């Protein structure tokens, strides 16, 4: 007897349950064809609906991966409908910035069925077909409902005009962007950015300032070797360039602003951006907690924002800034890997820690802090998770 899930839908007046086990089995069989599956899906979709092609980047390689990841996540979470609902709602909201509308859901559903049918071969049955159709109906309706609810609250994307571009070092630029309309967010959050010379490629960047009266957003952009968007942002944007900004996302925000808990902030390279936004926010509080900010880079010229941080530290007694450099023993300040420097700098057990930077650095620092006695819920890091398109 196949195990049945708890999804029910009413059809023609009587209850019909989805055969979840059957769907999973069928999906596993189809997924065994690898990259052929998403390749077929997108080609089918673009042939039937050529107008949809323009919503995607030229290279579809990453996109195919995203599709398969999302499908795997959906199929494996079909049982826990609350997790799945949250995932789908996020996906629905997230797709607004790509210009997805209700009609597209129907087109995608039809291509999805065609793809499943093609790769299922003789094992494709009318029951499978109607179960997949019903499952997709549910998926689509959750996504559409979330997107509709979101429409009441905010635009699908914001227009951003570059008003200043400052090249701070060989490979780091600081951009000031004026969003239109005003964009509200929490200090520490990020937005996806698309620039006109790299259409349909969205990359997340954190705002490096708390929301301001004039609405300006500061971004710290580091040139990644071969990075399409970072290269366009650092070398091809100038004052007047137009960007598109997605809605603010991210969980690296101040957890208990009123608790007075002292903070430890550890930033590697442009990971400084979200943490500087938090510091910026703290400067507006009547009684900010004590904050120790470690700012690390490989070489001294990677400490692209040190002047501004030291100015802040001079103005605010509660803020201590320690610059560290990992690959230049001649550096006059702290040298060594950021986790080492943080660990040898004292006892942080009474503090809430916020970490941002290269994932390896964040992981190492987390491990060091936990072995030094910090609880997991004292350590805050960014988790982009499923919000990535």
């Amino acid at each position, binding site marked *: 007897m196949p195990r049945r899930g708890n999804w029910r839908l009413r059809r023609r007046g009587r209850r019909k349950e989805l055969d979840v086990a059957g769907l999973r089995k069928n999906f596993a069989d189809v997924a065994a064809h690898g990259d052929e599956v998403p390749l077929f899906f997108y080609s089918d979709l673009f042939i039937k609906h050529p107008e949809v092609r323009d919503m995607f980047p*030229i290279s579809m390689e990453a996109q195919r991966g995203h599709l398969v990841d999302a499908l795997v996540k959906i199929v494996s979470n079909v049982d826990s409908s609350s997790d799945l609902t949250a995932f789908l709602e996020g996906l629905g909201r997230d797709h607004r910035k790509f210009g997805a509308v209700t009609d597209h859901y129907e087109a995608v559903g039809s291509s999805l069925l065609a793809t499943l049918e093609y790769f299922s071969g003789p094992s494709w049955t009318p029951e499978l077909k109607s179960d997949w159709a019903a499952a997709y109906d549910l998926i689509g309706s959750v996504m559409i409902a979330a997107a509709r609810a979101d429409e009441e609250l905010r635009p699908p994307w914001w227009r951003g005009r570059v008003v200043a571009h400052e090249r701070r070092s060989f490979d780091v630029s600081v951009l000031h962007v004026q969003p239109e309309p005003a964009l509200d967010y929490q200090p520490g959050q990020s937005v996806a950015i698309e620039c006109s*010379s*790299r259409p349909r490629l969205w990359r997340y*960047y954190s705002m490096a300032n708390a929301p301001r009266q004039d609405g300006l957003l500061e971004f710290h952009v580091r*040139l990644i070797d071969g990075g399409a968007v970072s290269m366009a942002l650092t070398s091809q944007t100038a004052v007047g360039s137009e960007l598109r900004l997605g809605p603010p996302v991210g969980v690296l925000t101040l957890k208990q602003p009123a608790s007075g808990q002292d903070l430890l902030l550890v930033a590697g390279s442009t990971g400084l951006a979200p943490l500087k936004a938090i510091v910026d926010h703290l400067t507006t509080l009547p009684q900010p907690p004590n904050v120790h900010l470690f700012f690390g880079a490989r070489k001294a010229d990677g400490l692209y924002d040190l002047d501004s941080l030291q100015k802040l530290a001079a103005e605010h007694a509660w803020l201590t800034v320690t610059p560290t450099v990992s690959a230049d023993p001649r550096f006059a300040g702290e040298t060594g890997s950021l986790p080492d420097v943080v660990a040898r700098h004292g006892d942080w057990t009474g503090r809430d820690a916020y970490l941002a930077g290269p994932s390896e*650095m964040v992981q190492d620092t987390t491990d060091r802090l936990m072995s030094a006695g910090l609880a997991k819920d004292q350590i805050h890091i960014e988790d982009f998770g499923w919000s990535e398109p």
Partner: protein
Amino acid sequence: MERALTTAWFDEQSRMSPEDLLTVTFPAARRGRRGYDEDSVREFLRMVHGQYLRMVNERTSLWQEVQRLRRRIISGQAEGSDANGGPSGDSDGHVHAVRILSAAQVTADRYVADAQAYSSRLTEEARLRRDEIMQEAQRYSDMILEEAHAKAREAAVSVLETAPAPQTYQQQQAARAELAYLRTYGDVYRAHLRAYTEGILRGIEDWERKESSFGEEVPGAPIAELPMPDGNSYHYG
């Protein structure tokens, strides 16, 4: 279309059937008159008329739907198996088209990936070269400083050793000559250092220019990247 059909199906439940027509009864006419009560008959006719009108409207909208589907089939956009319930010549053609488009997409993906790899290697090499230039410059300036220090130390020592309190005219002359020599020496080194530094700056500017013009040569050629955030993907600096 789906909504129209659903509505029609639900309406079916409340609609009068032909059998219903046969079982309709009317109250008897008022005394002294023959036949049915006229108001009741008219009311019944109005209802039949309404139902008939609705069926005509439904028929029209269904006809339009049929026409729309026909046009789609003719323009080759029929959703293959949905429309004819199984693989056919059309769906073979469609699968063929899907394969061609897939091959084209894979080729495009490969070009983009190659371009990305090339650009990545280029930036990486440029970065390494820059580090080398900086290191070399550092070494050179260290060397100049070291040499200048050594010279100055020598000069100072020789002055201390050879010049006690009151100096003869010749000694003063010699000291002045030594001072003039050191000044010239310093000037020469400064000029050297300036020329060298300017050379490096020119090199860097040239390189920046090349880099930005390299970027412009491939406008709108998006390069697949790690799905993680770009700028705040936080690589060390």
